[in-house]
Every structure is written in C-alpha cells, then in structure tokens.
C-alpha cells in the first residue's frame, strides 16, 4: 500500500494567496489578542504591566499588511485595525510577505523567525517580550495542539478542560467583539 504523503506547503504555488492570508491572520491575531486580554488571566497580568496607552504594531515591510493594537484605560488590548494614530511604541516587522506567511502558516515558529532574521523588533525589549508571551499564550489556547506545537518552542502543560474552557472563552469573546464592533 502506498504511504500517504505529508502535505508540503513549500511545494504549492501559494503566491496569490499569501497576501490575503497574511491580512486575514493579522486580523485574527489582533481580534484574538483583544479577546484574550479580556478573559485570560495570564494575558491580563502581562497587559497590566504595559504602560497606559501603550501601542504596538505587527507589519510587513515595506508597505504590506499591518495590525495595530493599543492598551485601553480599562487595561485591555484593543484592536485598532490597520492604521496607527501615532508611531507605535513597539513594532514587529516582517522583512517580507513570504516571511510573515511562513510564520502565520505555522511553518516557522515565532522565535525561530527571530533567530532566522525574518523579523525586526523596534522598541522597548521588555515590553516586546511581554507581547511575545501574550501571543504564545493565545496561540496555545486557541490553536489545536498539533498546530500550536509548530508555532511554539514548548507547548505548555494544559489540562483538557483548561484548554477547552480557555479556548472557548476567547472564541466567544472574539465573536461578541465582532458583533458589537
């Protein structure tokens, strides 16, 4: 019997879908972080230690897709969309659309992307590390384990109820936010 072949994304012609996919993923990350900062205790604790009005962006150089977020007066993260009202305090910049696609299609973990010089970090390092932890936590909660394991250095120890409950809280908050906004 012929062994089933594992899907290799690099062999597919994904050129035309890269941009819309990255745009969509940045929106999902922005909305997901917004929701997670409202319901997940660990992410809330990280956001608490960011300064009031703190603003950050993830973007693709030179003028590619972009996602901007800000810390609200209520101490949560708010997704601002693609425009920043001022220069963000921290900027995570992918050097090229393909590099963002590699990360967002979970072919390359976030830390590996930094190690491979795909990502530039501009701004306060301490705040940036908090953001990276928030992203990691959100990914571990909302993604299936086999996908999150590709994105993270180490998948955290999460009980099934913790994972299901935490993930569903974030998803339901995300849905509510989408409806209200």
């Amino acid at each position: 019997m012929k062994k089933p072949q594992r899907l290799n994304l690099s062999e597919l012609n994904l050129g035309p879908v890269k941009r819309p996919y990255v745009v969509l993923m940045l929106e999902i990350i922005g909305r997901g972080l917004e929701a997670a900062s409202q319901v997940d205790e660990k992410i809330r604790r990280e956001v608490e230690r960011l300064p009031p009005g703190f603003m950050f962006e993830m973007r693709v150089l030179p003028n590619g897709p972009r996602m901007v977020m800000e810390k609200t007066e209520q101490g949560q993260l708010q997704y601002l969309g693609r425009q920043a009202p001022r220069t963000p305090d921290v900027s995570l910049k992918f050097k090229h659309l393909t590099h963002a696609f590699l990360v967002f299609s979970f072919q390359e973990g976030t830390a590996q992307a930094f190690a491979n010089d795909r990502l530039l970090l501009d701004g306060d390092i301490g705040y940036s590390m908090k953001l990276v932890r928030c992203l990691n936590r959100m990914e571990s909660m909302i993604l299936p384990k086999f996908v999150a394991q590709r994105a993270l250095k180490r998948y955290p120890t999460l009980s099934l109820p913790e994972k299901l409950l935490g993930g569903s809280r974030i998803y339901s908050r995300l849905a509510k936010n989408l409806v209200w906004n």
Partner: protein
Amino acid sequence: MTKSYYEFFCPVKIVAGHAALEHIPYELSTLAASRPMIITDKGVRAAGLLEHVQGAFAEGDMEVVEIFDDVPPDSSTTVVETIAELYRERGCDSLIAVGGGSVIDTSKGVNILVSENASRLADFSGVGVLKKPLKPFFVIPTTAGTGSEVTLVAVVNDPVKGVKLPFTSYFLLPNAAILDPRMTLTLPAHITAMTAMDAMTHAVEAFTCMAKNPISDAYAVSAIGKISSNLIPVLNKPDDEAGRLELAQASTMAGIAFSNSMVGLVHSLGHSLGALCHLPHGLCMNLFLPYVLEYNLPQRREAIGELLLPLAGAEIYARTPAAQRADAAISTIRGLRDELHRRCQLPRTLAETGKVNREQLPKLAEMALDDGSILFNPVEVDLDDALAILERAW
C-alpha cells in the same frame, strides 16, 4: 543540524598582533582621515595604556587632535553630547575608542552625533534609524571580553528619562578593531578571568542557541579553544604576550560569533543580576553558564557535546563516549570555574557573590523573562523555570 536560513555579517577589519597599534596611522590614512580624537577613561589613562597609542601616532607622523579621558563606567547621553561638541570644536575627522564596553558604546554614540551633525542622541535610538556610513572609527579594546569592537549595537543611558537607549545599525560597526597584546598585558588576574569567561559565554551561547549558523559556529569553537588553552597559562604568567593576544583574539571571535548568532538564557539571567545587584557582567556570565547549559541539555545535547573538543582537547574528546560528551563539557566548564575561584575568588554561585539576597530571586526571574536574549534560548523558559535555575545557582 542544518539551519534553514541564516545571515552573517562582519565588515570590521581586524588588525592584530605585535606592533598592531603602529598600523593605526596608515589605516586612518586609507580612510582619508588624519585628525583623530581618542575617547577613553581614567583607568586606561592611569594604567599608562594611552602612552602606547600616543607613541604609535608620534612615530607615525600623525597628530592626535584631542583626547577625552573621562568616560564614566555607566556612560550617558550627556557625556556623548559633550564629547561630540568637543570633536566639532577641535575639527576632528575620526574617532578611536580605547577601553572596554562603556568607552566603546560611548564612542559609537559620539560617532552618530558627529556624523549626522546632530545634538540629541535620543533621536537616533532604535533599529536601523541610521541610513548612511559614519565617520572613520577604530576600537582598541583594553579588556578581552565584551566583543563590543565587532558588534553593531550600543546602549547609552538617558539620564533625563531614566532609561537605557538601544542603538542598532550596521553603520555602528567600527572600521577596524586593533588587538595589540600591550593593551591587555597589565589587566589584573580577576578581571582577566571575568572577561575571559564573558567571552567564553558569548561563544558557548552563540554555538548552542537558536540562531547558531555554520560560520558563527567556526568563530565560536575557535574562541572557546583559545580561552581554554590560554586563560590559566596567562594567569600563571600575566606578562605572556602571546597568551594575552590569544585571549584578545578569542574575545573578538566570540564577539563576531554572538553578534551574528545572538545569546540566550545565561545573558537573560546575567543582565538581570547585573542590573539588580550591580555585579560585573563577566562575573554573572561565569556564574550562570553551567546551570543554563544543564537546563538546555534536552534540546542541545549534541551541540554541547561538540564543545568538549575545544574545551578539553582532542585526547579527552576522543576517549569520551559520544553520549557522555555534553556532560563532560559542562564538567570541564565547572572545573575551570573552580580553578578561577581558587585563584581569583571568582564566584560560582549567587551565595558566593555575597551581594544577593535569596528574597531577590523571584524578582531576578521576572526580570530575566523580559530580557530579549531569552527569545533565542533553545528551550522555552517560564517564571518557574527561571526561578528553579536561580535556586540551583544559589
């Protein structure tokens, strides 16, 4: 392990060896510079090291237009702006940093201001803000540890905002690093040991962390070999010029390695310890190195095992079974630390520093998580992990 993608860059000319200082006038002339300013500190001046540099210029028919010798250990934007003003007043056209990390970072800051014809250093903080080459800039290291002579980063205190401003640009790399054994010949034993262990840690982390690549690996392995072979002989015979040069070269090679491969958890913990308890950077590196290697063993057993060769030599490497090489490499580092503790009282544990309270460990762990180098550590680290390592290092 093959790395799917990497970058490597080091355009710094290395001018190294006997009478290296005497090459400076010619090297400056190739960059169309003839009116250098020297930036240094009181310690370098008091140790008489500047005389070697001035002698090289006098015999080379080139005048040192200005010497600023008052860079403090923890430099600031104010100091940088003062020096830049002096540079302009005296009509200098190039910079020579003579010293350690603080002098070199200060000089990089000065070069930004005088090249951009600006007065506020803070305006250039960040990644890639500089867009054009700066003035000719040489570095003469007087310690063998920081590797700042080949790094593209500078960190300068902003006393007004109370923050450390980072500057990252390829244009901050010096045109040349001058490694002359005369410049490190009089280093006291404990500083020689501390700075060598700083360089050792740069090389070990470059070789074992996530951004390792084949070219920086070559520099890292060579640096580790040079330190392992020369540190104790130099402590035995401090005026050993050849050994001093080997340590200086090792420091530069380790600097080239880590500026391309980054560093990991030893630095995250070490930066935090240095900031909270005001301990020298090299001491912190020496303290945490084996504990972090043990923590990283599950992910990096093979890479750490490979380091047994430069650490202990071919014979020991050959007779150690492959499965035991990583543990043997860590034991060798522990053995070197024991020897340095016996000779120079270089602390191996947090308790031995006499400057850390056990109650500070949670704060240290928290600070380490916010350090950028933790991103490149091969094993994920959370608060409990960091605290557990600190407890082991107690």
